[in-house]
């Protein structure tokens, strides 16, 4: 059985890879493209640690096949900072101590980024429900939600 040969864009860069049908996009990112920022917490779409943005849409990469992304654009945590400049969310998470062990952090940052690109003024309720697919066991979510809302406010001020 021959592998699929896929050409896609990851974080703005063209990539090429081979994969089996059953390899998920998460498998490809981590094992083939060495982008280990997206994490595997459950492989069943219940924890969000593998969150990426696929053609502008927030998804779990463990629920997408690698062979589905031909010709498409994937954005991962590794693409969130621009050179040495962190995304405002990344900066705010650090300043606000919105992470403890950090395993869920890439997923939360990608998901939060997707939220703020859709809504510039989310309420606490909207933030919590948008992020309900991202599990955190360390923080109790408080500082994460605050960081997202503070970042939204800062970004509105320009």
């Amino acid at each position, binding site marked *: 059985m021959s592998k699929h040969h896929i050409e896609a864009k990851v974080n703005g860069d063209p990539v090429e890879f081979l994969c089996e049908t059953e390899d998920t996009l998460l498998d490809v990112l981590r094992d083939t493209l060495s982008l280990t920022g997206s994490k595997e917490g459950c492989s*069943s779409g219940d924890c969000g640690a593998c969150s990426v943005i696929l053609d502008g849409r927030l998804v779990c990469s463990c629920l997408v096949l690698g062979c589905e992304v031909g010709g498409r654009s994937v954005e991962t945590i590794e693409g969130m900072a621009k050179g040495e400049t962190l995304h405002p969310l990344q900066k705010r998470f650090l300043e606000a101590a919105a992470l403890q062990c950090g395993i869920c952090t890439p997923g939360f940052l990608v998901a939060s980024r997707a939220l703020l690109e859709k809504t510039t003024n989310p309420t606490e309720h909207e933030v919590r429900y948008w992020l309900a697919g991202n599990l955190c066991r360390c923080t*109790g979510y408080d500082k994460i939600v605050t960081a997202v809302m503070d970042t939204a406010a800062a970004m509105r001020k320009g």
Partner: protein
Amino acid sequence: MAETNGHSQANGQHVVGTRTVRPDGVDKVTGRARFGADFNLPGQLIGRVLRSPHPHARIVSIDTSKAEALPGVKAVITRADFADQPSEFIPAGEMMMNYKDVVRNVLAREKVLYEGHAVAAVAATSTAIARRALKLIEVKYETLPHVIDVVEAMRPDAPLLHDDLFTVGVEPKPERPSNIAKRVEIKQGDVEAGFKTADIIVEREFKTAPVHQGYIEPHAALATFSEDGSTELWTTTQGHYIVRAHCARLLGLDIGKVRVTATEIGGGFGGKTVVYLEPLAIALSRKAKRPVKMVMSREEVFKASGPTSGATVRVKLGATKSGKFVAAFAELKYQAGAFQGSPVQPGTMCAYAPYDIEHVHVIGYDVVSNRPKVAAYRAPGAPISEYAVESVVDEIAKKLDIDPIDLRMQNAAHEGTKAAYGPKFGPIGLEETLNAIRKTEHWNAPLRKWQGRGVASGFWFNIGGETCVSLTVNEDGTVSLMAGTPDIGGLRASLAAVAADELGVPYDKVRPIIGDTGSLGFNFLTGGSRSAFSGSMAIVEAAKQIKADLCARAGKLWEAKPDQVEFSEGHVRPLGALAEKVKPMSVADFAKVAGKTGGPIGGVGRINAQGAGPSFGTHLVDLEVDPETGRTTILRYTVAQDAGRALHPAYVEGQYQGGAVQGIGWALNEEYVYGADGKLQNAGFLDYRMPVASDVPMIDAILVEVANPKHPYGVRGVGETPIVPPLGAIANAMEAATGIRFTELPMSPPKVLKALKDKGLSKV
């Protein structure tokens, strides 16, 4: 002690106590930080484990020949690849374990004792081949009846897990083996006499289900074995020195030949203080002569790591009508899982520890049953026993019509109280946390029908332990800090702050790392709320050595006597007349002339940290129950807890918030659901229901600081206490909202609705 408390930067400022950005933070927000499964070695094989489908069975035979013959399979291991271990108890975090049990938990020998118990493992060139190989291993089982519930397991006719387990702690010694491994007891005064003086006695029985620590990162290990008998291991763990010790023992290796690196860890909460994959990965690598990487699936984490005990607890508390507790009894029965070692001992110690009671008697039973071996879970044992006690305290408050905070204040342990489990408390902050809660706007906020407010207090004793930290001053004046306790939640920020203040070096010039086992002396694991407490203490020691060394160097440079130099605010300073002749020299100044003045500058703090102070907390929660569905919504939550001294306030708050939310999950929805067949029905995040962001409100965190006089900065460990009060606080709030005392956790909607209906309180 107090002398070092004032150490600071040259400008008199302190980094300790401020909200710095953690030094390991950028890597964590960019995805660069490497957790267990992020490590790879060229040529590595993938290892996978074959696990028992039965909760209890004798292993008749294991035939691995077909698996070994599959192309791509490079090694297969079974019990035959591990030497048996004689019985020997050793500390495992705050619990004890026995090597004879460890070797059997890592790979089953005579029997499988739970669904998911490891039976064999393979290493192959791909995951797909490894999974296929597992299917080719033929294991013949003779299934046996199983038992899971702790009360069921204690019955004399219960299926027996170990025919060599005789209850320790009963007289006379039993003649027949049973599932009761141990009976523990603490006693103070005479409870029978005490109960006779009580005006009111409340006695209740409570039941809790097993719950999992719920870390988002599954276990992962990467091992490479060399022909000279040495091995390198990368693993996600709370204690790499402990991993080293276990692997050396189980594989018959010199400790010095096992080098373990603790990767970044994606949560542990006590569940990563033992070994599962590590010995298997090393054994496979030894056989295959190639590196072997192993990662657990989420299902394996639930089925084959260490969820905490389910338990049955009976509490009997007597008080006078003015509210003084006069006698306290409790009987705890905790599941240990397949092998002995539940946290029933700390459960008995903590049950009544927040209160000053003359007569106390607590008995605990450690009971094995056919579910995974229990590992520590944040304040192990205490959430269960204190849930029961705090519920009964609340009931007494209601029956006596005394405010629940007043009742606790009246009986609160304070400095000088002798705890029933032994020690006399030094200064402690329970009363301060109760007062802090009483002063909140939350305490007085109005409530509507079907809303209820509950309060509960909790305690954890915290530990110190063996700790080794090195501080090195680099040639450019920056400081390298190497600690040996994995950082699970911001430790490096706290330790860097302490080192910065001790040496008067700017915070961003201190670079902390967690060293591997080859780089530092022994460190006990990260657990027991010890890493900031002990690590900072060890840094103070290391800094003392550096300061003494720099003063000696200054003495030579300045031709001064010892009483003419001193170290303060980041500089060696000339005193008296000498001050007119020479200028103070900073750490960075010395760094430039290190070679000329004697060589590299550094210090190593090697301590067995003593004087850990207990941390008390009080939680306040408002919730609302939907009387037509039994669904509970947490409306508001406040935590007040004594940190002694918060080295980094934001990360201390984070501990309070995280522990509270774990408690919310434990109280409302988390539980292991077993079928009659002894198999776990909810081995995934879909049906093992941990709180999500929309399930909880903001958690207000109040930092109380009653300095621990035995620590140079006044620090108390804070990580575990936060999970102790929530169960009681939420159960008490449920009672306030519904009028029903729930004595079984979790208080999930079907149970709540049924209880409401039975009492005629629901229109449904």
